[in-house]
């Protein structure tokens, strides 16, 4: 049995129970409806109140989705906004490097989805999205199906281990034993325990190629782990294997921190791609034939768009990474489906994959959706996202460097480039301390924006 979207919208929760008992599927693929392929939902409507209001469903409660949920409701108060997120609580990636070395409390990173939804009058729906039927406009989740008028996919990144290995066993071992620590939750807890329990030897970190999540974060992490070793008198060294020919961002700041603060604690090896992992003997081999032993590691592979984009049939390789969103780069609308938007780190544009970028872009996308809901003839003009990115290079006191940048479209290159860049890469003295305070203030403001009214 296959229900139409209108029928789904009519369902009450009592009907949902009845449907569950019969095991009917709402999104069963049919030959007439190939778009529903890949939808493997519960087959029952999610238990959500029924309204006639235009329905905006946002998938992914990260920096992007949270910003879009709040501002869509703010700019189109008559809309029903539902944020679907698989996690039960929010854990911040930004500043997590400071928590990994015990310089800030976990509380600072953890936030409450229920508060965000209460304060901003939208619904938080805790479930995993497993299918998208673009024709019927229904998503399938682990907790029932939801019809939408507008859909935002903001699921973030996944890892792409394909350049390192095609062996699923090795990939699983890398994911489990040496997690990258670029997705919040268990990966960060694993990394923190590795660092706090570290006794001696080499600690390998890697920097992938492509437009990976948070360009400065691997260098920031190297500095902070080195600082921790230094402070604790640990006979350890951070080996930073960078696939890129040079530090990818804030070069002067990081390079001088490596040299002046952590000369004995960081070995930076640019242009170093790993071609062989020998996990049993704890060795890696680089393209240059160097064999490096390690006591522990966090291997950060390339990134790609979240697998959800593929499930939804909206993924395409970008200039930088595999399977990113196939969208209009100015409006964020999925090509061919203007009621679906893809945002945040899943976007294909070469913007910095950072929280501030996702937040400011989210406000713009919310304006776009609200303009449609409010029946505006003219869509809001394109606004550049803003990247504000602080990186800590030391922890007691926190010393930081930062960069601010917007983006401009280059017609010739058919790509976006940085514009209006301001880099503050001095980490010593008062400037560095003030940047450290700026980092904390930046984050507090962002959390307020996402979780408070």
């Amino acid at each position, binding site marked *: 049995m296959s229900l139409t979207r209108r029928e789904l919208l009519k369902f009450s929760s009592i009907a949902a129970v009845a449907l569950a008992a019969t095991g009917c599927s709402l999104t069963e693929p049919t030959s007439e409806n190939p778009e529903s392929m890949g939808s493997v939902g519960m087959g029952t409507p999610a238990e959500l109140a029924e309204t006639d209001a235009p329905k905006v469903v946002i998938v992914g409660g990260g920096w992007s989705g949270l910003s879009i949920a709040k501002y869509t409701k703010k700019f189109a108060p008559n809309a029903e906004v539902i944020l679907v997120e698989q996690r039960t609580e929010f854990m911040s990636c930004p500043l997590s490097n400071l928590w990994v070395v015990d310089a800030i409390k976990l509380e600072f990173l953890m936030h409450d989805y229920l508060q965000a939804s209460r304060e901003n009058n939208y619904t938080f729906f805790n479930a995993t999205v497993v299918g998208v039927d673009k024709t019927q406009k229904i998503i399938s989740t682990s907790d029932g199906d939801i019809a939408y008028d507008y859909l935002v996919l903001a699921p973030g990144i996944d890892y792409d281990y394909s350049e390192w290995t095609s062996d699923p066993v090795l990939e699983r071992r890398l994911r489990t034993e040496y997690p990258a620590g670029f997705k919040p939750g268990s990966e960060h807890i694993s990394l923190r325990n590795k660092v706090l329990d570290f006794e001696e030897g080499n600690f390998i970190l890697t920097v992938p190629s492509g437009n990976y999540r948070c360009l400065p974060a691997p260098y920031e992490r190297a500095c902070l782990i080195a600082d921790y070793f230094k402070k604790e008198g640990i006979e350890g060294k951070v080996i930073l294997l960078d696939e890129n020919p040079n530090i990818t961002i804030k070069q002067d700041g990081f390079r001088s921190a490596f040299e002046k603060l952590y000369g004995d604690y960081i070995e930076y090896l640019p242009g170093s791609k790993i071609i062989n992992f020998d996990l049993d003997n704890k060795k890696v081999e680089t393209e240059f034939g160097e064999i490096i032993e390690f006591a522990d590691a966090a291997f950060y592979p390339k990134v790609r768009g979240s697998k959800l984009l593929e499930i939804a049939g909206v993924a395409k390789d970008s200039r930088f990474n595999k399977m990113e969103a196939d969208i209009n780069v100015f409006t964020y609308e999925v090509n061919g489906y203007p009621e679906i938007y893809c945002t945040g780190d899943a976007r294909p544009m070469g913007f910095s994959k950072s929280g501030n970028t996702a937040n400011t872009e989210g406000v713009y996308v919310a304006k776009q959706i609200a303009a449609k809901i409010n029946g505006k003839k003219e869509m809001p003009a394109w606004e550049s996202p803003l990247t*504000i990115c602080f990186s800590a290079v030391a922890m007691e006191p926190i010393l930081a460097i930062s960069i*601010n940048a917007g983006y401009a479209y280059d017609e010739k290159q058919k790509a976006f480039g940085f514009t209006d860049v301001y880099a503050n890469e001095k980490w010593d003295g008062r400037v560095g301390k003030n940047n450290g305070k700026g980092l904390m203030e930046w984050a507090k*403001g962002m959390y*307020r924006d996402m979780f*408070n*009214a």
Partner: protein
Amino acid sequence: MKRRSFLKVVSATGMMIAINPSMINQVLRADDGRLYKSYARVQLLNAEGTPMTEQMLETSENYVFNYPYEGTTTLLINLPNESAKDVSLKDEFGEAYLWKGGVGSRRTIVAYSGICPHQLTHINKKDSFITYRKKGERFEGHVVCDGHTSVYDPEHGCKVMKGKAPQPMASIVLEVGDDNTLYAVGVLGPDKYHEFFKSFRRELKEQFGSKRNAKKEVVSTAVAMRLSAYTQEVIQL
């Protein structure tokens, strides 16, 4: 400038508000009380307790006083240049209002809420990321919030010049009394006091003993002191 006579009107919410008649025109929605709200007429004093006159305000210096609540700060500046007159500004929903300009003999004295309308970074006793930038400093002549680098133009009602703040900083309406001393009388523009009191309960408790203390409206006088004396750390990035 003499104290103006205020017209009492009842807002849509039934609240009694006082409106400066000269401000009522097509752009200021005066009958609603949202974009202009009068508070107690409070005389500004200097750090020694003497009523503040224009001459006591050093040009380009950052001063702070608590207004309209004990726990909210206002940034007071004597600008080097005359401010603009009758600037039409918009809040984040596109609602227009009119900023009349600064006061004083050269119309250089302006005051703005010390709460940034972007994400509520605010001047407080511990630190301030919001400052007026003097000559030679980055963004000179502007008010800057370094929470996320929002830049405002104080000569034009603190309209947004750069950054992602969705609306201008609220301005504190000043008057010069018969004796040439300065008074704060109300708040013009979209203020963030409600969100501020909701978001900073713990900080207000720490700095003012309780949120209730912080929420008391200031009556009669307020001390305007240099920002560097009010706050432990002035931070410019």
